[in-house]
């Protein structure tokens, strides 16, 4: 079987995969990084979103071999090394941006991407960016609030640093 190598959350990893092995299968079953979820397996729900070379993608819709040599960040790589939550994660907790939590890894990865691309998004821009992430409990409202709060906090951190 072919060998695949990539950097996941800053750590060099490799393993044997089939041609048809999806990136999410390699992450969850090969590396035991089970924070990335599979909600639909049809590339619609976004629970499996990870970052590949800095871009958010659905890890159930890319083969592991296509990520050979790539830098991958999963939800496990978002918190600080000491376990402290990222600003986005903390905002989801504070604003109750989750109920069952199944979609949360994808939501946090997507929100993190959005705020990197657009540090001060409008509510409409947030909702539009969440187009590919489905939540069946919260009604999205608190997710949007959490992302707005994270944007505000990251914005004031930036001002303080200047």
């Amino acid at each position, binding site marked *: 079987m072919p060998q695949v190598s990539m950097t996941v959350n800053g750590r060099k990893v490799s393993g044997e995969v089939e*041609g*048809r092995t999806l990136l999410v299968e390699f992450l969850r079953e090969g590396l035991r990084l089970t924070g990335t979820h599979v909600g639909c397996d049809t590339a619609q729900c976004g629970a499996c979103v990870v970052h590949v070379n800095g871009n958010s993608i*659905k890890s159930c*819709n*890319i083969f592991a071999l*296509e990520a*050979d040599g790539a830098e991958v960040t999963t939800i496990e790589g978002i918190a600080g090394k000491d376990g402290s939550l990222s600003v986005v994660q903390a905002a989801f907790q504070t604003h109750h941006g989750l109920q069952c939590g199944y979609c949360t890894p994808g939501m946090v990865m*997507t929100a993190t991407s959005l705020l990197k691309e657009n540090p001060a998004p409008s509510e409409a821009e947030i909702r539009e*960016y969440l187009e590919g992430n489905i939540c069946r409990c919260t009604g999205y409202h608190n997710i949007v609030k959490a992302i707005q709060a994270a944007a505000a906090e990251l914005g004031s951190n930036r001002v303080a640093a200047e």
Partner: protein
Amino acid sequence: MYAFELVRPATVAEAVAALAEDGAQALGGGQTLIPTLKARLAMPEKLVSLGGIAELRGVTVEGDEVRIGGGTPHATVAHEVAKAYPALASLAERIGDPHVRNRGTIGGSLANNDPSACYPAAALASGATIVTNKREIAADDYFQGMFATALDEGEIITEVIFPIPQAAHYEKIRQPASRFPLVAVFVAKFADGVRVAVTGAAENGVFRWTEAEEALSADFSPSAVEGLSADSDGMIGDMHGTPEYRAHLIGVMTRRAVAAAG
């Protein structure tokens, strides 16, 4: 998924050689093909991933045309042509969702020619040229019906050349679950006339609405197409809309596109 071998060539030449083998199929961004494989609707023996070919990616603006590498993702197109060809950037920016736009490619979309895909409308309305590893194909000759194109087996789209129109707009009504157009119309006004391409509506896929083109070439205003209605014969009828509804939407989308293009 059935099992297959996946190879990642680094050049177009290597990809063409790999695709010459029996049972080989090209893999672009995979945003349609991978779900198709999961549903066991395709059974390639070998997938030739085009994702590792640097020469297939990139956007250049030269004079009055935009050249887009076949392996360029939608997100890159949205970003890179925003100034040179805003209507095309806006189309790319509204495909699927952010994650799909980071993977899906223009070459993949045009090679698949889904009857509801967005890019075929831009290519046909712009009078684009589809460049492959063997030849150049005019958009008017390229689209040959639902999921059918002029591409031969193993032929790869290396580049798409879009002439930049004087004014253009892409107007779409989205099917909210799939995010594909229910009906969408791309209007492009050039010095020598107006081209109108319709996607999402017809069983045979993207097509030019010639009656509207004639009316708009004489008078580029929404009122010029006020009385025109597209024929519902050959339109798609499904749970989301009847053929008559889609035919009606073609007129509405065209008028809105013209109004927005100014």
